Structure formats: C-alpha cells, structure tokens
C-alpha cells in the first residue's frame, strides 16, 4: 500500500531506479537539488526523488521498515515538494487560539509539538505539526492577499515523556519508527480550510531560569522567519525559489507579528504554555 501524504495532486511510486535528469545546483552525500528535482538518500531507509512538486519516486533500502519510510516522506521529502511548488514551509507547529492563527517555530527539540499539543488540550484548534506551509494565495478564502497557513497534518509527533506530561496514554499509539519512543498522537482536525496567519512565535531555550518575551520589528522579523524555513539548506540549490521566498517573506513579515519566546531549557510544558498564554505581547496586539 502506498504511504500516505497529506497534500493533493501528488503521485507516489515505488521503484528500483532513480535518475536525476538535469544538473543539480547543489549536491552532497545526503541530497542533491535544483529548481525542479530533488533526491534524498537516508541510509537504511530509502532513496527518494521529487520532481516538479508533483511526483515522488521511492526506492526502499534493504531491511527498511515502512514506518521509517513514511516518517521521512512526511518530513524532508514533503518539504522538497513544498519548495518545488513555491510554498514556504516554516519549521513550526500551528493552531488557532483566541481567534489568532499562530505558528510556533523553533529548532528540532525546542518544544514546538509539545507546546502545540498542550494548547490544543486547552481548547485551541490544531492546524499542523512540525511543518506549517505558508502562502499568500490569490483568490483565497481571505481577501487582500493575506498570508495563510495551509492545514496538512492530523497528528502530532510526541516523545513518551511529553505524552505522559500532557496526561496521554501511549498505549495504542503508533510509533514514528520502531526504534524510537516517539508516537503519533491523533488530534481533532477541526479545520480543513486555510487559516489566516497572525503571529509567529519563535521558541528558543536558554540556561537561565526566567522566561523572556520580545516582539521583533523591522528586518529582524524577516531574518528570523528565514532562519525558520523548514530545510532551508535546500535553497543552496534553488536560487530562483530563494528569490521568490525572499519577496514572499518580506510581504509576510510586514503583515504578521513575530514574537521571540525564550524558555528555560528545563522548563515544564505547562509553565511554557502558561507563559505564552498570558503574554499580552502576543494576544493583545
């Protein structure tokens, strides 16, 4: 059975041969890329090829399990599909809270998924986990060419500790890979339409014990958004897309709030969510 992917107009095929038909503009041991083609090899899992944002070929490696093949397909490979379609994938999880469309961005391990799951437990509407595609679409459900979040996911990936911390049972949940204590938590998908993006929260950690909040302005908003593009290293081989993303991000940055939240490295999820939930810099603007 073909693995599931959360976006439409996409063909996925399993095969035994992958050919890069044009010259890559960047390549290293892991991936090669140009504007229309992308190839990624994950040792012991699979080699993936994405073409034109519409077609994916997969060659599973010997002994690979289907969970791992699906995990990276829905991560790094999906990222390449979005790049090829000219849609910016921000590295963040997203939800609607207090009437605002919010993306929580940050590096892997910063706590994006846990914070989003906790907000959803408090009544927020889930949009995406880990990757939040953002586009300014013509003829969209919103007028004035506002930036929108495209809803694509219906599960949140959470480590066992976070599940327990949030009061969920792990039994019955699917592991993301057989060797990992990380699980897919299904969440109520209350929206299938694009959601207006109001605020991007950048979640970082520090070694101090206090929480900090800072509203970014001017060019620093753009810089921070660019740093939080999911798989931004693909842009090394996509100069045209890089230019498109630059103008789109400038436009997006001018229409949204960007708030930097710094939490103690060892903060509990509930404390982080309390701080964000009570931060007037985010909700009362």
């Amino acid at each position, binding site marked *: 059975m073909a693995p599931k992917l959360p976006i439409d107009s996409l063909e996925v095929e399993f095969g035994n041969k992958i050919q890069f038909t044009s010259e890559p503009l960047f390549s*290293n*041991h*892991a991936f090669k890329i140009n504007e229309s083609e992308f190839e*990624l090899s994950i*040792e012991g899992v699979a080699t993936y090829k994405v073409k034109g944002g519409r077609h994916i070929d997969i060659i599973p490696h010997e002994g690979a399990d289907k969970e791992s093949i699906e995990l990276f397909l829905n991560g790094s490979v999906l990222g390449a599909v979005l790049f090829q379609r000219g849609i910016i994938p921000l590295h963040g999880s997203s939800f609607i809270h207090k009437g605002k469309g919010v993306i929580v961005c940050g590096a892997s391990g910063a706590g994006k998924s846990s914070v989003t799951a906790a907000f959803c437990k408090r009544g927020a509407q889930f949009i995406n986990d880990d990757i939040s595609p953002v586009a300014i679409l013509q003829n969209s459900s919103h007028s004035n060419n506002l930036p929108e979040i495209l809803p694509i996911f219906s599960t949140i990936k959470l480590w066992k500790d976070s599940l327990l911390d949030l009061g969920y049972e792990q039994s019955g949940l699917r592991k993301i*890979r057989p060797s*990992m204590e990380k699980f897919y938590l299904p969440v109520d998908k209350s929206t299938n339409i694009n959601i207006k993006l109001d605020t991007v929260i950048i979640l970082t950690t520090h*070694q101090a014990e206090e929480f900090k909040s800072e509203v970014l302005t001017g060019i620093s908003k753009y810089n921070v958004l660019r740093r939080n593009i999911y798989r931004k*290293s693909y842009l090394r081989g996509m100069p045209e897309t890089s230019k498109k993303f630059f103008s789109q991000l400038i436009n997006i940055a001018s229409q949204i709030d960007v708030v930097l939240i710094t939490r103690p*490295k060892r903060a509990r999820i509930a404390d982080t969510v309390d701080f964000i939930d009570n931060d007037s810099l985010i909700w009362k603007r």
Partner: protein
Amino acid sequence: MAKIVWLASYPKSGNTWFRMFLANYLKDSKEPLPLEDIERTTISSSPEEFEDESAINPFELTSEEVDNYRPANYRSVAANSPERLIFKKTHDAYTINRKGEPIFPGDASYGAVYFVRNPLDVAISYANHNTSGLDKVICTMIKENAFIGGRVGDQLRQILLTWDNHYYSWQNQNQIPVHSVRYEDMVMKPKEIFGSIVNWLELPYDEERIDRALNNSNFKTLQEMEQRDGFRERLQNCKQFFWKGKIGNYRDHLTKEQVELLIENFKKLMLQLGYIDERGELTI
C-alpha cells in the same frame, strides 16, 4: 574549500578560554569581544548543523545512525565554506562509527588542538559545571563508555570514554595532526603557549595582537562578562561557567579517597603529563 581545525578536549579543560582568545585574535579586537562571539567556533555536536547538512532531524535517528552521518556532514561543511580554516569545538573522543569510519574525517581536517588539564581539577570544575556532585563526575571520568548529550533538544551524543582514553584516542590516531597543550601551561606561560598554537595554525603571528587577545580573554574579564551578560554554554543550575580556573583548586575540594581513586585510574597518563612524579606524588 576549507579545512577544519578541531578544538578537542575533555570538558572543562580550557577549550572555551582558548575559543575566546581565538575570537579576539582573529578579529584583532581592541576591546574584549562579547561572549556570544564565541559562536565563531561552532560545536561539532550541533544538531542544527547536522540537520542543515543531512536534511534529517537528528532526533529522529538513533545515536549510531547520527554517527554514521557525521564524517560526511563535516566534509560537506568544509567543502562548502569559502574560508581557509573552520574552527570546531569538540568534546568527543576520537572514535570510529559503525561503518568503520572515523567520526572526524582526516581528509577534511587541518588538525586538532588538544587541551588537557589535571584530572583532579577537571573533576572539581566539571562538578561545578553540571552541579551533579563530585562522586558522580568522578564515576563519569573513569567510566569506559561515558558519553554526554544525545537527548532531545540537547547536543548530539558525544562519546567521551574515560578521561585518559579520551586523551589517548586523539594522540594515538594517525589521520589528523595533533598539537597538544596543557591547561596549566596556558595559565603559567600564556604568551608562549597561545603563541605556539597561532604558529601551528599558520595564522599571521603578531606579538602585540597576542597580548591584546590574551588581555581581552583573561579569566577576570570573562567572569565579569558572564556576570553582566550571562553565557549560553552555562548549564541551568550552574551558578558560574567561568568559576575559578585556578591550578590546584582540587586541594580545597577533593577528599583523600577521591584523589587516590583518580590517581589510581590515571597514573600512567598523569605521570606522562607531569601531574604526578615517579613516586606517585602530586606535583601541582
């Protein structure tokens, strides 16, 4: 295309101090650079860099899978840099991954500067750094398969080995040239030792510049900056990263049994490095 210089050490052995000196020296700064400028020398266990080079979230791989990627990731970093040299701090011992490849690839390396410090002072400084208690730190230092990092949101896993095997792992390999310095010599004859590193790296040698960089990175200045601005490499419960830095600090903190345990485990290397004499007496 660049070559990588590994700034290698067991934790709490003078690595960060040297990185501050280097940042000041390379910039030829008149005033002390802020601690955040140390980011010029990135850490080899950075998960962000791993993700950029491999296009994979390292926390969705096992530590063994991560180690399989690391040599090629470093080659990619070096191949795509316009600099002559890239400096990378590392606390990893020199080890081989499951594919039989060294984690630190010789072909992408200029060399390694290895910082070594009296293990008795390392124990004290390390215990202050991670607030885990002296006995626990000593257990780590004598544990054959010790490692740090590897947890979600943390650095990548770094295999330490024992304190002495960490040293031997770098000295006994033949893929990367190593220039070793003792922390105690960095403190007692800074100009000579830091100057020797500048020469070994074939950086432009300038005595006045060395004086200035040493002055801008002296321990008191670093302590004052940490007090004023904080320091991101300080762990959450640790009060001060730049704590004492002095030689022989163990005398005020280690028990006789703790000293004996460390000497018993590390006798050969401590003798070789001059931390004990032939009779097993401490020299520092």
